[in-house]
């Protein structure tokens, strides 16, 4: 393949909801060390775009390529390199944070519990490892889901509203983590209603339904 991109490549993506066009002919590349912030009004298709990029939804037209291959042809390779966190945190309230993370880890890779304690410590849940998530606050539940970011070796992170119900400390800690990820050649796609300041990476912004990416300084 001559046009292989080292990361994600969206090729003339169109998306509709019902019979209404959300966006048409969206085209961009996401390479290592780059961030794309997806913005737009409610219902402009931010979540739809993220789900298309993650391979959860199919676009009406167009292709998503991972390292030059269509993602549904390279699923196992792409999914090993992808971490997608959606609105719904995929956290079982009946399970403890450790059990939740253990499951997430084995779904995406290894079975070991290595690093889970450490990740929970980093995310500020030390001392809550063995309490069922039902007893944690909304922000703490969110942190359990975000602790996966410390565990994963995925290169491409797609995060839908990760800051929801987080406090200021957690947000700044996450931004530090994003910076580290980008400096290590990671990629990030993020939506947020809150301001984002990531001290690293080449940052661009996509305001739906416009399909032009704008540089962001």
């Amino acid at each position: 393949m001559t046009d292989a991109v080292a990361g994600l490549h969206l090729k003339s993506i169109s998306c509709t909801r019902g019979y209404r066009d959300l966006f048409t002919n969206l085209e961009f590349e996401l390479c290592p060390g780059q961030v794309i912030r997806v913005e737009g009004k409610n219902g402009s298709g931010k979540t739809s775009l993220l789900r298309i990029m993650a391979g959860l939804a199919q676009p009406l037209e167009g292709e998503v390529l991972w390292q030059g291959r269509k993602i549904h042809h390279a699923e196992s390779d792409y999914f090993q390199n992808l971490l997608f966190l959606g609105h719904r945190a995929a956290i079982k309230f009946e399970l403890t944070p450790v059990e939740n993370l253990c499951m997430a880890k084995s779904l995406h890779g290894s079975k070991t519990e290595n690093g889970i304690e450490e990740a929970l410590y980093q995310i500020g849940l030390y001392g809550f490892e063995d309490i069922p998530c039902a007893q944690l606050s909304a922000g703490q539940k969110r942190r359990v889901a975000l602790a996966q970011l410390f565990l994963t070796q995925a290169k491409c992170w797609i995060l839908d509203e990760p800051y929801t119900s987080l406090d200021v400390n957690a947000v700044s800690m996450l931004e530090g983590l994003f910076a580290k990820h980008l400096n290590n050649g990671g990629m990030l796609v993020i939506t947020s209603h809150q301001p984002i300041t990531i001290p690293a990476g080449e940052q661009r912004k996509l305001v739906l339904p416009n399909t032009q990416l704008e540089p962001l300084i």
Partner: protein
Amino acid sequence: MKLPAIVHKFSSPKNFYVMSGKMIPWFMWGFVLSLLVGLYYGLFVAPTDYQQGESYRIMYVHVPAAWMSMFIYMIMAVSAAVGLIWRIKTADLMASVSAPIGAAFTFLALVTGSLWGKPMWGTYWVWDARLTSELILLFLYLGFIALQAAIEEPRNAARAGAILLIVGVVNIPIIHYSVEWWSTLHQGATVAKFDKPSMHISMLIPLLVMATSFKLYYAASVLMRARSEILRREQNTRWVKEIIDNES
């Protein structure tokens, strides 16, 4: 597996819309003509059956309807699979617009079967293998229609329907076999079965003509349904806008 580009081009909604518009009149005329011929031969020319008297003439709607009920389900499953694998929009479409027609034929096969059964068996309903299979087929059709109606996003409805149809097609032989087996097991319950002697040619010909006529009917009516559905699904394209603007 890749389909040649020409297939995709040929099966594009626009092309399909134009082509089918030209084909429908032919199918309609063929249907009306063969229907008249079939009815004439079936009702006037074919001789009275020595066992069943005139009541056997119900066969000329019952049997073709039963054939159609299976035939349409197969068409739906094949086109759904094609739509699922190669993402051909018009194939998805054919599956979903065929369903009401198939369900109607299944319903007719059941009702005419029981109307035929009354003079033959003395009751409107008998749990014989063929009627039971037909009843289950009707459930499969209704399930498919209900599923299509419940899913709002048309593309998702098509894909979910395709899975259901493929599962159904795998199951139909199994269901059919088990119902056959079950009915031979409980043979005592069924009243005198028709023995099926080789049919006389004068009775067979109207049957085949009627079967052809039903197929042409299906072709005409499925294309008519597909055309209106294409207008709905492709409403954001320019060519549909032009067509609508030119409609008075």
